[in-house]
């Protein structure tokens, strides 16, 4: 998707952040750095719910009068629908707030261009592995509390299946905390190969530790999470199958493109420009 530069506007990337794990906010800064490098916005900033700057503080960092806010979140839900609008005083797609015009885009995870990112990731993690003999698992968190948390994963699976060049024997949405469980991957996969892509923005305990334990190649808590090299030891041979495990999808440098695509989509839908 072609992006028209906005040298007079600012981009504000919103992430969750963590009070315990500094790795959790790294991808947001990486995405900001990549977009800054492309010189398509006058300013690019990050802000967080659990780290500094907070969303309210970030407002003071911005010179531009026009600001695009992009939630660097994987799905729609409580944070994108309640917390971010409340913290930034947003009342709709475009809101005038303290003298600035704020455009509020959809979260990156629900953009259709995430699909090509997933497929690129599968090629990188399992190069030369025939898709016809492989099952692709996309793993979300899943929670009975919020249907939206599984919708983004299901939408990606449905989209990949309909692609004319999709040759995977099967594409299955799985979750950590609700069925179909990723822990059952051995039963769900009818093929000799399984490729697993965690549908999260950042690598953290879920992708370093929890999902590897559910897949069966990490037995217990051992090394500090960031010291593990779970993504570099592919392939794993388990349950008479060959398993390829990817880092969280948000760690992909091309997430910068998805952020820009989400802004282009916003403009197209709202006639902002």
């Amino acid at each position: 998707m072609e992006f028209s530069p906005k040298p007079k506007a600012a981009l504000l990337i919103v992430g969750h952040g963590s009070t315990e794990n500094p790795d959790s906010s790294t991808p947001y800064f990486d995405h900001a750095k990549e977009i800054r490098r492309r010189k398509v916005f006058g300013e690019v900033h990050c802000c967080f719910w659990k780290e500094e700057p907070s969303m309210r503080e970030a407002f003071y960092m911005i010179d531009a009068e026009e600001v695009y806010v992009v939630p660097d979140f994987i799905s729609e839900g409580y944070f994108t629908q309640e917390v971010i609008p409340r913290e930034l005083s947003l009342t709709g797609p475009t809101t005038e707030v303290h003298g600035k015009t704020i455009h509020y885009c959809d979260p990156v995870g629900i953009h259709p261009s995430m699909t090509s990112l997933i497929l690129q990731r599968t090629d990188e993690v399992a190069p030369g592995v025939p898709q016809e003999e492989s099952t692709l698992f996309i793993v979300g968190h899943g929670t009975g509390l919020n249907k939206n948390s599984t919708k983004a994963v299901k939408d990606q699976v449905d989209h990949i299946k309909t692609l004319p060049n999709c040759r995977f024997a099967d594409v299955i949405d799985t979750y950590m905390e609700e069925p179909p469980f990723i822990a059952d991957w051995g039963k769900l996969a009818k093929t000799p190969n399984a490729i697993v892509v965690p549908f999260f923005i950042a690598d953290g305990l879920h992708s370093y530790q929890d999902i590897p334990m559910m897949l069966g190649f990490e037995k217990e808590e051992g090394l500090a999470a960031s010291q593990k090299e779970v993504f570099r030891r592919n392939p794993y041979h388990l349950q008479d199958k060959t398993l390829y495990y990817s880092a969280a999808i948000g760690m992909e440098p091309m997430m910068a493109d998805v952020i820009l695509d989400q802004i282009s989509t916003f403009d197209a839908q709202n006639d902002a420009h």
Partner: protein
Amino acid sequence: MTLTKVLSNALDSGINQIGQLRILRGPLRLHHIDDVNLDSLEVHTDPDDAREISLYTSDGKYRFTKGELSLKTGWIFILDSVEDLRRAIDLFYPASLGLWNASQNNEIRVQNLRDKLNRQTGMYRHARNVSDEGIQKLVKCLCGPSNKCVKKILWEIDETTPLEDSEASRFDGIVGDIEMTTAIPMVCQEACNFFVAQSRKKAKKEFEAREQ
């Protein structure tokens, strides 16, 4: 006026410090105020390196509260422009320049603590149950330079309940005994997430004490 211009004007007026950072000109440099022998420091030229440097204390603890008086020493930035200096400062002390500028211009929208606590959800929603007395104690044992925070507190408990006088509530946001006109004070317009987390713990203790 852009914040880069505001910073440039501040440097022209003689300002050379913010938090634990020293700013030197000719060429433009940034280093820890405790580092004296500049030739021995690790040189950085990319302002984005500031995030990595600010992540951990010298003994490896995660500094998620950026205003903590625990910035490690041993590095120096040699920077091309005030724009790059602004970015490095914003990574060491997020939004500090903008908040200072807004407070100078009386444009800051301070978030009193009760408003902040009442917005918390999930496990942190219980933080709102902390008493005013509990909050006053927390300020004295969490905020200010004795407790390793470099920020000047602007918030109150609520519109009618100011913070009690203490070293923490009096602190001016400037590290060390220096001329106030040479430093940008660090301001705290809303309580940090560490304070919120401690408020939750305090509320829990208060609840348990009442139950006994």
